[in-house]
């Protein structure tokens, strides 16, 4: 009896050892298999290369996915696209890059949000040589757009999507009430007040109210009132013009906005507008297909666009490069990655994508009649008008943008809630200055 138990013990012990050893060997054996396999086939046939593109949930990504077979046929390079919502994208890519993962070949990023931080952290491969090899390649890109992905002469990305803040409005509602399209912020407030009709489920105005998300769309209001986030490295959010802007924006949402704006980023605010529950909406131009596509919007044929209304200090809406493409620093397929970027950023592709509603950064495409042919006419006009006097950033230009946005977002929140804006701004001012000082 005892003997058989010892035998059992031994057997179990061997089993445990065997499992442990074999599981540790699995990694090695599979590694040798693949390397020998590719070695033998590499001689006879072309190796199939696959690159991984990590992108945002954005109309551009939707468009490009449909066009990928063309690229795969042309180059034989397979493309795998992973897409995430903006905040998750920043987090996901940062974690992968920081762990020195080799798996990201092409990365879609926000130059104004993550650009500086990612570049400083060594996440991006240097693209200067790739871009330099193609003569005159960058001449066709909008200079300010290109500037947002460069550090001195070093290029770490190529601009992909440009946008500016425009006024979305409901043509039918304005017509019915006999109201002209507002040209100034004053007129906008008056019109929003007149059209605000909560009893029938229509608000006068909707825009982002969620802490960090609101900051970019608030920026055009801030510039219109003559304010800015910072001046000469000092926080400027307690300046009288800034306070006025905070009050104006908060007041508009507080009095004429729908319920629940405090939790609204663009998907929520856009939903309110496209469900026909708001008369005016200010947000990025690049999101327009959400409002004009009849499968997503109940008011698709009633949406009008106008340039951003002028404030007391004139009209200075942001005109920015919201998205860019870069190459992962640790990618082992940098050449293939560059081939992909070169392809999607080529004149023909940008023209094609822009025709589908993805505003790009190429001058020649914007100048050609086809470049804006599929845009609603009033939107194309509004984008052109904004471009004349635009501001090239929509958030504080710092390294730790996330922290700075939250800090300033607190003031917007206080304004929307009708709290003491001045006190909130003073509190945020101290914290914002601390961020600025820490980056000197």
């Amino acid at each position: 009896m005892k003997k058989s138990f010892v035998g059992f013990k031994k057997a179990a012990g061997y089993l445990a050892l065997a499992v442990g050893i074999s599981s540790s060997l699995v990694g090695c054996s599979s590694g040798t298999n693949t390397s020998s396999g590719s070695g033998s086939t590499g001689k006879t046939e072309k190796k199939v290369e696959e690159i991984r593109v990590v992108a945002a949930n954005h109309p551009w990504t939707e468009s490009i996915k449909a066009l990928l077979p063309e690229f795969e046929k042309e180059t034989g390079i397979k493309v795998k696209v992973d897409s995430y919502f903006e905040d998750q994208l920043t987090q996901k890519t940062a974690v992968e890059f920081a762990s020195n993962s080799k798996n990201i070949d092409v990365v879609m990023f926000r130059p104004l949000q993550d650009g500086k931080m990612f570049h400083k952290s060594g996440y991006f491969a240097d693209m200067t040589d790739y871009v330099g090899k193609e003569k005159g390649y960058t001449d066709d890109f909008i200079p300010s757009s290109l500037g947002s992905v460069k550090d001195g002469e070093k290029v770490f990305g190529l601009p992909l999507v440009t946008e500016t803040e425009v006024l979305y409005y409901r043509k039918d509602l304005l017509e019915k009430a006999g109201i002209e399209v507002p040209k100034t912020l004053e007129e906008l407030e008056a019109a929003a007040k007149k059209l605000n009709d909560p009893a029938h489920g229509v608000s006068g105005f909707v825009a982002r109210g969620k802490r960090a998300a609101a900051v970019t769309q608030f920026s055009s209001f801030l510039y219109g009132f003559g304010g800015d986030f910072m001046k000469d490295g000092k926080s400027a959010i307690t300046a009288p013009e800034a306070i006025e802007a905070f009050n104006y924006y908060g007041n508009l949402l507080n009095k004429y906005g729908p319920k629940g704006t405090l939790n609204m980023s663009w998907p929520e605010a856009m939903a309110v507008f496209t469900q026909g529950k708001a008369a005016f909406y200010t947000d990025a131009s690049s999101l327009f297909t959400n409002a004009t596509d009849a499968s997503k919007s109940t008011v698709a044929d009633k949406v009008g666009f106008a340039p951003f209304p002028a404030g007391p200090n004139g009209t200075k809406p942001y005109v920015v490069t919201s998205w860019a493409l870069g190459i992962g620093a640790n990618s082992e397929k940098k050449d293939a990655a560059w081939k992909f970027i070169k392809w999607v950023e080529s004149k023909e592709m940008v023209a094609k994508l822009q025709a589908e509603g993805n505003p790009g950064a190429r001058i020649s495409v914007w100048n050609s009649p086809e470049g804006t042919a599929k845009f609603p006419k009033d939107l194309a006009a509004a984008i052109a008008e904004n471009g004349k006097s635009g501001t090239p950033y929509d958030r504080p230009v710092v390294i730790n943008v996330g922290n700075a946005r939250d800090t300033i977002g607190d003031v917007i929140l206080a304004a929307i809630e009708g709290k003491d804006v001045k006190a909130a701004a003073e509190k945020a001012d101290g914290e914002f200055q601390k961020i600025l000082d820490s980056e000197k």
Partner: protein
Amino acid sequence: MTNWIDRNIKWVFTMPAVIFVALMMVMPVGYTFWLSFHDWNMSNVTPPLWVAFENYKVLFHDELFLKSLKLMFYFTIASVAIETVLGVGLAILMNQNIVGKGIVKTLFLLPMVATPVAVGLIWVLIYEPNIGIANVFLQKLGLPGQEWLTSQNLVMPSLIFIDVWEWTPMIALIVLAGLVSLPKDPYEAAMIDGANTWQSFSKITLPLLKPTLYSAILLRMIDALKTFDIIYATTQGGPGTSSQTINIYGYVLGFQYFKIGQASALLMVFFVIVLSISIFTILLRKRAGVNL
């Protein structure tokens, strides 16, 4: 070889588990502890910089951190208290001989089985202030609609309500198991002595249930302390910072502000809190005369 295994049999058997625990639990905690004394923003170029206790110092002067601590305790205590009372009630109900007991039991357990993120997203729709069913319901009753998750004052109670909805069944389940295994004789004796229902509940059922209740509360409390999914799926800590519990704040510090050192320090504080609560509860159980 055989002899070696024979001599070290206890090590051979336990090794796989020990290696697993070391790799998957001790190492991450140790690394977090190490990071909490460094300043690092996830850069591949500049390595973590030793700053001693700076991260902890900054943390305890950070208004948002103190607020997040408060919110965490508020959330945990309120939801676990409500869940315990309702859970015991539910368990007693389900322990009676009612028609369709099996179906009722299954239905009550459904919320617990659902994925928290999906639960969160559904509740976002329910709480939606313009078209959500919660406000439609209130308005049918002639009450004014509320802003729920988008109101600074209502957001925490609204979240607690979700948690109670989702996790009361778990307490009920554990308590029900305890109830079923209770001996019958004390009740018979009490009945003969003329005890009424309330007396037999408070003098017999509750004391006998104590060990079960302690386990249920401990499990639920640790879970509630680290609630992340429901809050992140519904408000991400908003509006503003009014539902930013310590877990959400840690996430924000780490992955939105890239202050990895400070986020690690925060997690170490959190670790100590959870650990002391667990030890405290276990001591309580021991005093109640039960072994783990």
